[in-house]
């Protein structure tokens, strides 16, 4: 399961192990394992375009090292890329007006060829966008992962979101959601991830892309509930029953 390599580095350690000494004069550059990693990205298509969301945290091994990382970036006029996995492996297009499908194609080729050379970009990338096509504005949402597996879908989630958010999205997504409905659905998924994914933090960014262009909203937090009776007196069962 390639996501596991991205979200959880060497089990139990505080920081990733030091890199092995480079053989052959240090010319080879490989992400042998991810250092600083981002966790899940969730995205779905709605009526006017594509909405994408992720938290703004980045982990260094099991330390939540950075708390304000923007993992969603606008690319050109038509697309957004959200990335989970190693943050230094992000590669950005430089603002020419490629549509989302073209960028997805390009990223797929890049990821696949790097993987073939055993020099992978340790990322799962979500690509969303809206571009004028022969049938009017066409929404596009696709994903590429580290080994070059790619596909297009109505809703995408990477990392832990693949396990926690996709079931929710599959049950509740429908065509032509309004922006408010889409945000509510995305927040529902983000909340589940916040409770259950140890590398997510309570600071999220939502971005949307429509025919008019992309908007990345400022980060905000979700309300969480911790008032469960079992949490109230955690020392209660501390003595143990034997």
């Amino acid at each position: 399961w390639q996501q596991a390599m991205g979200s959880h580095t060497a089990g139990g350690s505080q920081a990733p192990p030091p890199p092995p000494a480079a053989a052959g004069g240090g010319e080879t550059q490989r992400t042998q394992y991810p250092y600083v990693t981002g966790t899940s990205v969730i995205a779905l298509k709605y009526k006017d375009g594509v909405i994408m969301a992720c938290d703004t945290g980045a982990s260094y091994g099991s330390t939540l090292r950075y708390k304000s990382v923007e993992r969603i970036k606008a690319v050109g006029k038509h697309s957004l890329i959200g990335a989970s996995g190693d943050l230094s492996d992000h590669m950005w297009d430089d603002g020419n007006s490629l549509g989302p499908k073209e960028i997805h194609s390009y990223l797929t080729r890049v990821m696949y060829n790097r993987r073939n050379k055993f020099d992978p970009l340790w990322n799962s990338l979500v690509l969303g966008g809206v571009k004028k096509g022969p049938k009017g504005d066409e929404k596009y949402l696709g994903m590429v992962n580290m080994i070059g597996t790619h596909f297009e879908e109505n809703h995408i989630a990477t990392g832990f979101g693949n396990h926690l958010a996709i079931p929710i999205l599959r049950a509740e997504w429908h065509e032509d959601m309004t922006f408010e409905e889409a945000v509510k659905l995305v927040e529902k998924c983000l909340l589940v991830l916040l409770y259950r994914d140890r590398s997510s933090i309570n600071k999220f960014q939502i971005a949307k892309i429509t025919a008019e262009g992309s908007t990345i909203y400022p980060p905000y937090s979700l309300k969480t509930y911790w008032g469960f009776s079992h949490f109230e007196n955690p020392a209660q069962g501390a003595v143990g029953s034997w």
Partner: protein
Amino acid sequence: MSRLGDWVYRLQEQRRVGSLSTCVAIAGADYCVVTADTRLSVGYSILTRDHSKICDLSSPLLPVGDATTLFSPYIDTILSVSPKLNLCSYVCRADKCVLASSGFQGDIKALHKNLAARELLYQHQHNKWMSCPSMAQLLSNTLYFKRSSPYYAINVLGGLDSEGKGCVFTYDAVGSYERTGYSAQGTGSSLIMPVLDNQLKSPSPLLLPARDAVTRLSESEAIDLVKDVFASATERDIYTGDKLEIVVINKAGTKLEYIDLRKD
């Protein structure tokens, strides 16, 4: 052990996991049925339920879906768009050759693109479509060319040969191939192949004079058989299910049909 070593090992492991999903092809006297399920899985997760594994190799001049983008460097105008097909499969009208693959999706897509591009070049250079047996040889060579680092794609090529008879070519990952009357590849193949052997009763290749390997079933009977066989494979194979894409090639052209399979 270095983490890159880990990762290489994991990659090799993934390749050994088995060809994910299932594809089946049956050749008849004047038709060929090529089918594959549409589930894309990674480990125990389903990434998407709607992912085509079939590549129509007969006229890559007329792509639809996101094939449009992949070919935009090669074609000036999109000649037509079929309204009922909105999956990411390469589609076209006049067709005699369809490829279904199972295995690692990155390699499958790369292989399909490669072949479709070669087919297009052939069309430009020779002013005619590639025949199915020619495409079969090309596919074999393409696969063997990467013998040292193979395409992890196990293929089944189906179509009509130059006499209009159905033909099915079945491959392994490095290009060894054989023309048969029917074939199943992928994770469900061990469940499906015995049933096809029983139902289609191919004559022994040792008989002289050589008998036709194609089945005597009619087109609709073959399609029913394929639906039954996939429904059974879906029951027991976790990587097979969701939807079945059936491509039927005959004199009149290519027809595409979908039926639902179990989603669990």
